[in-house]
């Protein structure tokens, strides 16, 4: 009887974690779609790394490990980092990739220094902060699921409300501007939604690998469809799948970090999609090539025969 109750409690914890990871995967997959289409995959990486010092500073200022406070710190730092990158590109002659590199490593380095300092102070409270580096889905509680659900939900609703405007921004910025849409404001809006998706995932997946959660589901989804709405739904689905899969695998064996496991699951989906998807898949291309070659050969043979006659 006692064993059974432990088992059900375990299952319940696992279920909460799985739900959290699934929501997370869905939110980051959806918003990551735009990041991929805008060729801003690396921006996600910069944001997640830039968020790290925000977590440390939030902890130093409040002494609290409440997820919402740490997430808020992460969001502010991630957002500042993004604004720095966009401003550097606009105001100087430094190119986008260099600006990304500079901000990513500076913020991340600063974050690591702060974390080390916090650890040195021997604050008993600090133990959980490392979570944000590599992620630990096992620490997801009901309250975290609620946070992910509500904030992620808000981000997705905002994206849906401005669906037409954001699509136009991503497809043809110049035309959007000529119609009078404020493209800089829309750009900041879209980036802010991306920041929300990223900081929500830091606890479970970690700063180092979070960008993969944005990019991988969207890249996989693009292989299967040529329609934006379908691509987003698929990306959400793939993200959720990777989240649940990674959580279950990492919970079944001890001491496997969840973040990397989730990312590896997402990678499997990407690999599968790149090889097998119709039209865009490698296998499909190979078959089409063979078929074309065969058809041409037949045609060539006929031509040859007709010449003989």
């Amino acid at each position, binding site marked *: 009887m006692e064993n059974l109750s432990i088992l059900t409690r375990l299952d319940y914890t696992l279920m909460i974690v799985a739900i959290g990871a699934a929501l997370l995967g869905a939110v980051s997959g959806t918003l990551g779609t735009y990041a991929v289409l805008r060729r801003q995959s690396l921006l996600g990486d910069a944001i997640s790394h830039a968020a790290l010092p925000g977590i440390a500073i939030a902890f130093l200022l409040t002494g609290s490990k409440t997820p919402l406070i740490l997430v808020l710190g992460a969001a502010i730092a991630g957002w500042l980092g993004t604004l720095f990158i966009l401003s550097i590109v606009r105001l100087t002659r430094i190119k986008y990739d260099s600006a990304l590199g500079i901000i990513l490593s500076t913020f991340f380095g600063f974050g690591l220094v702060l974390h080390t300092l916090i650890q040195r102070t021997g604050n008993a409270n600090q133990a959980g902060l490392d979570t944000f580096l590599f992620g630990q889905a096992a620490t997801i509680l009901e309250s975290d699921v609620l946070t992910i659900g509500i904030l992620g939900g808000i981000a997705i609703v905002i994206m849906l409300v401005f669906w*037409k405007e954001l699509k136009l921004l991503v497809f043809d910025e*110049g035309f959007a501007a000529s119609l009078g849409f404020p493209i800089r404001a829309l750009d900041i809006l879209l980036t802010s939604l991306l920041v929300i998706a990223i900081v929500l995932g830091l606890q479970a997946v970690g700063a180092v690998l979070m960008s993969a959660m944005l990019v991988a589901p969207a890249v996989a989804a693009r292989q299967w469809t040529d*329609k934006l709405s*379908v691509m987003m739904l698929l990306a959400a689905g793939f993200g959720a799948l990777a989240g649940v899969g990674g959580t279950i695998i990492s919970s079944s064996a001890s001491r496997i970090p969840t973040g990397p496991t989730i990312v590896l699951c997402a990678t499997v989906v990407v690999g599968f999609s790149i090889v097998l998807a119709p039209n865009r898949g490698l296998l499909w291309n190979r078959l089409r090539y063979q078929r074309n070659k065969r058809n041409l050969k037949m045609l060539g043979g006929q031509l040859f025969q007709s010449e003989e006659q």
Partner: protein
Amino acid sequence: MQASEAKAIEVTDLTVAYQEQPVLWDVDLDVPPGVLLSIVGPNGAGKTTLIKAILGLVRPAAGNVLIYDKPYEAQRRIVGYVPQRGTVDWDFPTNVLDVVMMGRYGALGWVRRPGRQERELAMQALEKVGMEAYTTRQISQLSGGQQQRVFLARALVQDATVYLMDEPFQGVDATTERAIVTLLQELREKGKTVVVVHHDLQTVTDYFDWVMLLNIRRIASGPVAETFTPENLRTTYGGRVAFMTK
């Protein structure tokens, strides 16, 4: 009446500089309503920049642009724009009809989605450019000429009075070029003003009734017969024009 004398586009003392070097220097341009005007000039002459400055997409260092006597911001609804084909990612997951309907987004305003009316307008525009068979075609599967016609259709649904087009003939075959020219001339017959960035000096006299010669400064602008002279061309291209006009 003043209305009959109104200029479709009036550019005064326009100077644009991205870095230190000016891209456009003190440019004036008056375009009367109902003309088909081509902007020609060598690479780096500022043709695209001029179009973008008229549309308020680049901020000028000095100067002024008026569309029918009002600033562009007040006249967006009567201006249609065809950007260069190469400025967008044609692998974007969407189809032809969807792209054409984007031309209605300005009139729709915030948040409202395109509906049946927009769909019908888009279909009509696609018929005009001979692309009605391609409505559900993925845009990644279009040829260069088809992409260009999709962009034209998108501008047509804007139902504008003034059209600004950046190299609509780039990379299209002779048949498509002919079809596009016919379309532009039809627009002119309806009293619309069409400004086209153009590269092929050989066809200027055939296709257009007005021309602007641009090389950072405005060299000349006016009716083709008076403006498109060997002398002006030499000034524009620095004597590097190997062939002469008819």
